[in-house]
């Protein structure tokens, strides 16, 4: 299958990027791992290529190789990578540097850490402008020009700000401005929007699209999000374990994948082909937890325009036993604060949370302890939610130990039972978190939350840190647990695809207010509020859904 991409484009003019048989190895502690095992791909001017694959597929290595930025442990062992006619295999640092910025601009992955926090934004863009060879007096004008092109309003004021004063979306635009400042022929965007909210993501991607159209530059998007690939790329290359398994026109490949791996990826992606809840609400069950007029104000540091920030503004919500309430919103909407209040980790400024008839917000930590057995939390980041020094079995048994349930033997039996319940092999109990993959760790975290047989699980973005196929497995696991154990879920998520897969009821929150709530089928199919429609429209993969419809 290698070479098909090159053949397919045999008729076009000389490609700006021409990779043939590229193989990259990493040497680590005397062991060699193969990140790329001979890939071929070409990109022409004005073309948008998406490289998709899961973690470890080699997609970021391909990007680094294009920029001559492989870490010192990495080495090109075979093949060639020509960018604008310059061979990068064996190229000196001096040659590689000529390519970077001038020919290939990189938009890095995480806007929160990719800017120097101690320098003004304009200075950082100016650095890239000066490297292009612009004379000093003209630099400021060029900086403003680059910021404008990246779609930043009021660039003169923004250039004087520090990164921490900007939102994630603006920071991402600054990174795009830096990439544009060198006037490159190709922009390589490594997961450009995975750290952003869907609506911001959409605006950024729209903007990249227009840049490609207007300036005729090539765009290489590296992403794990098949929806982004389908909507934003002309062609797509699917990588698995350092090999190209499938390549072709984006909509053809993703709408009718031929390779089994691509088929699995497409099948697993939540909300890729349709956004519709799979199940209708069943007979109504009693209310387990109820937020009643909850308000939460956070004090702002002195000198801010107002004294307090209202994170949650008069929210009334209820979750029913054995069913799933999904709280959907973008970052800063107050959705996580709602969870923390319900868990007793924060006190509300006004209002109360009633769990099974008891107002838990007025109870002290000790008084709430008996109730605490009946609800548990599953956190967002499975990489930090398990103590690295604890074995998995010890982590899972921890709530049992804390509540003094059972003896050593019964706890061991319970752990084995729980491992089985979350479909982890029995041997996993003896391992440490570092030995497990993200999905396995999240399963272990779910097992821990289930250990004391709670009636309700609070799920805080339970799959956002996982690869799509693993997301799918964890979501299926959650659905099965609900069917088998009758446990209720309160799910907090920004991903409508995920929500559609598991939720019975959906509440959409923004700026601390509930804009819309109701049965998942109604909210997702006939949204009443404009914001819900915006959210639904912004979910990547629209072109595929339209193609499927």
């Amino acid at each position: 299958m290698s070479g098909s991409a090159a053949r397919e484009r045999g008729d076009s003019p000389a490609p700006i990027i021409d990779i043939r048989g590229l193989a990259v190895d990493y040497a680590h502690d005397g062991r060699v791992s193969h990140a790329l095992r001979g890939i071929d791909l070409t990109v022409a001017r004005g073309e948008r290529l998406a490289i998709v694959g899961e973690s470890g597929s080699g997609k970021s290595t391909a990007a680094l190789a294009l920029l001559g930025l492989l870490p010192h442990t990495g080495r090109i062992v075979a093949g060639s990578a020509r960018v604008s006619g310059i061979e990068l295999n064996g190229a000196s640092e001096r040659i590689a540097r000529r390519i970077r910025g001038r020919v290939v601009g990189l938009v890095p992955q995480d806007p929160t850490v990719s800017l120097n926090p101690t320098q003004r934004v304009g200075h950082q863009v100016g650095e890239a402008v000066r490297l292009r060879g612009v004379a000093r007096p003209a630099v400021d004008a060029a900086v403003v020009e680059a910021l404008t092109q990246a779609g930043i309003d009021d660039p003169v004021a923004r250039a004087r700000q520090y990164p921490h004063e900007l939102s994630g979306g603006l920071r991402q635009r600054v990174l795009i401005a830096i990439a544009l400042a060198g006037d490159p022929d190709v922009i390589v965007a490594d997961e450009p929007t995975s750290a952003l909210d869907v609506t911001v993501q959409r605006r950024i991607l729209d903007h990249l699209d227009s840049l490609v159209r207007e300036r005729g530059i090539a765009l290489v998007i590296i992403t794990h999000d098949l929806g982004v690939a389908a909507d934003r790329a002309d062609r797509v290359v699917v990588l698995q374990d350092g090999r190209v398994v499938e390549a072709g026109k984006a909509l053809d490949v993703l709408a009718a994948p031929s390779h089994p791996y691509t088929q699995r990826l497409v099948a697993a992606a939540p909300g890729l082909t349709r956004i519709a809840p799979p199940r209708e609400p069943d007979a109504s069950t009693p209310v387990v937890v109820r937020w009643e007029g909850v308000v939460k104000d956070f004090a702002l540091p002195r000198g801010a325009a107002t004294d307090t920030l209202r994170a949650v503004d008069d929210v009334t919500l209820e979750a029913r036993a054995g069913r799933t309430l999904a709280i959907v919103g973008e970052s800063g909407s107050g959705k996580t604060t709602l969870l923390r209040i319900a868990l007793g980790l924060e006190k509300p400024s006004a209002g109360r949370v009633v769990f099974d008839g008891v107002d838990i917000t007025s109870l002290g930590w000790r008084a709430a302890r008996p109730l605490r057995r009946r609800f548990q939390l599953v956190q967002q980041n499975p990489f930090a939610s398990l103590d690295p020094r604890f074995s998995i079995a010890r982590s899972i048994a921890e709530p049992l130990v804390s509540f003094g349930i059972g003896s050593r033997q019964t706890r061991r039996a319970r752990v084995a039972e729980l491992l089985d319940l979350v479909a982890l092999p029995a041997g996993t109990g003896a391992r440490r978190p570092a030995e497990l993959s993200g999905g396995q760790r999240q399963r272990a975290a779910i097992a821990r939350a289930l250990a004391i047989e709670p009636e309700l699980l609070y799920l805080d973005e339970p799959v956002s840190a996982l690869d799509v196929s693993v997301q799918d497995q964890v979501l299926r696991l959650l659905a099965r647990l609900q069917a088998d154990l009758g446990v209720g879920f309160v799910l907090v998520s920004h991903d409508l695809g995920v929500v559609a897969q598991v939720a019975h009821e959906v509440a959409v929150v923004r700026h601390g207010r509930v804009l819309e709530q109701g049965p998942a089928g109604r909210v997702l199919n006939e949204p009443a509020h404009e914001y819900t429609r915006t959210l639904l429209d912004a979910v990547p993969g629209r072109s595929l859904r339209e193609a499927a419809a």
Partner: protein
Amino acid sequence: MTVVFEKHVLGDSVLDKTRPEHPLVAGAPEGPDASGSGVLTTGGTADIRGRRRGSILLRRPGVIIALAVVAFVVISAIAPGLFATYDPTATVPADRLQAPSLTHWFGTDDLGRDLYSRVVHGATLTIAATSLAIGIALIAGLALGVVAGFVGGAADAVIMRVVDVFLAIPGLLLALAIVTALGFGTIPVAVAVGIGIVPGFARTTRAEVLRVKTLPYIEAARSGGASWGRILFTHVLPNSWGPVAVLAVLDFGAAILAVAALSFLGFGAAPPAAEWGTLISNGRNFLITAPWVSLVPGLFVALVVLSLNHLAKSLEEVQR
């Protein structure tokens, strides 16, 4: 195209820092062994890593030499008779001030005592004093740091301001003041040196506790019903003491120097018992005629301190 089933661990983790490296358990339907393959392929990496850390350390020649020096000192502290070739207090006036030779490896002092045997025996007193000093610093520093970091608020403010004041005074000066108040002898010297290095331990511990305290698994344990005490002893302490341990090894060297300095100044053990500092100080009068009396024990102390520093540095590198 040949298909090679090898696991690559590094993959594209360089840019994918936020994302886990893990095998593709792609699309397997949710079921009893959906993730079985994952366990098999990634299994044991941490175990191996733990064991490999040890072997990486032992592959460095510098570490082996440093370990050998430290082991020699520790063993001679426990059982000086094993290595000593003469009685450290036996005076042989005929053999006074002899240069290092095959019979007297480090030479002899002004009373004809074998310097090598005196250094070996001196290890007992010096190492005991240093261990006591580090023990005091470790316990007091950990306690203060944990209270400040974990309780926070007023306790934190009060403890850390006191620590700041102590940090502002040079360690040796502080130790001198304390030992003057406590009186002479090995134990007062140890206590003085120990108190002098408490602030560093308290600061490091507090910083680590503050870091670990905010990690998600602490919140998970809390919502799992764990009491603060349980969280402190099972989660916070074990996860925050790594840098403190490195600091302890590093400060062990510094404490040896401080103890030697105090005994050099005459605050240490009474003669004829010999601490390293006393040995160095004894040779002051013969620096021109018999420089080895001061020089060789001094070089030995330097070698031990250097070895400890090297060990601490290597430990820190591996921990990262």
